[in-house]
């Protein structure tokens, strides 16, 4: 490093940005969060589209099976609903626990 290099380095250092710039960092992280949100939404949209296509393609097989199963499952679903309601009525604190309240 010569004296001339030192002089150059000193002149270059005069216009350096601050070592810490919370505003810039926050801006970058907000842009990253936006990018991540859009990327997640795009992933979910693709997954929903694929799921919809799969159900559409399999509906000739799934439709009759669901109709046949639903007739048999209806009494069980009704019994489970009544049991759950009875449980919640018997123990109101459970409602708060289910809501995540302490």
């Amino acid at each position, binding site marked *: 490093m010569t004296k001339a290099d030192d002089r150059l380095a000193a*002149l270059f250092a005069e216009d350096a940005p601050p070592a810490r710039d919370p505003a810039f960092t926050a801006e*970058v992280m907000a842009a990253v969060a936006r990018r991540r949100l859009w990327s997640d939404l795009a992933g979910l949209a693709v997954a929903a589209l694929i799921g919809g296509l799969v159900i559409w393609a399999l509906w000739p097989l799934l439709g009759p099976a669901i109709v046949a199963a639903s007739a048999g499952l209806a009494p069980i679903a009704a019994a489970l609903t009544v049991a759950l309601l009875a449980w919640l009525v018997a123990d109101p604190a459970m409602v708060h626990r289910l809501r995540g309240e302490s």
Partner: protein
Amino acid sequence: MIHAAGDPELLAAARAGSSAAFARLVERHQQGLRAFLRRTCGDWALADDLAQETFLTAWSRIGTLREDASVRAWLCGIGYRKHLTALRTRARDRARDTAWQAEKPPSSSGTMTDERLALEAALGELPADQRACVALCLAADFSHAEAAEALGLPLGTVKSHVTRGRARLLQALGEDHDEG
């Protein structure tokens, strides 16, 4: 914990999805990247925009960086390629070509010394790749090898760019060009 971590630990955590680790990397490298881009493109607002885009690209490509690679060289490389793209875009608008000096805000001290003006003018006259080599090796203490890796240029080209660029800058400052 994150504040004391080195780049490799922060990289690993950011790869695993830690926003805090990536924010720490941004905090740590924003000064060097923005200084490099300010010197290479001359327009401070554009340089900061490019720096932000660089970090966004880095976030989306963080999985491609080798664990032992230099983060600052990687970031400067991305930033330099974004600058070249911006240059090509700007070249379509010839009216803005002369704005290099006009758009430059004053230095932090409020007024620019004659030396600083001479340096800025000389820097602005250098070709883009030569300016980038000078900005990395003379202003940011990059080794020639590190600058070559960051800019994707052969080592010999970087060395000759730095030598020629340094001579031009020293000449503009009225210094005798030595071989140091």
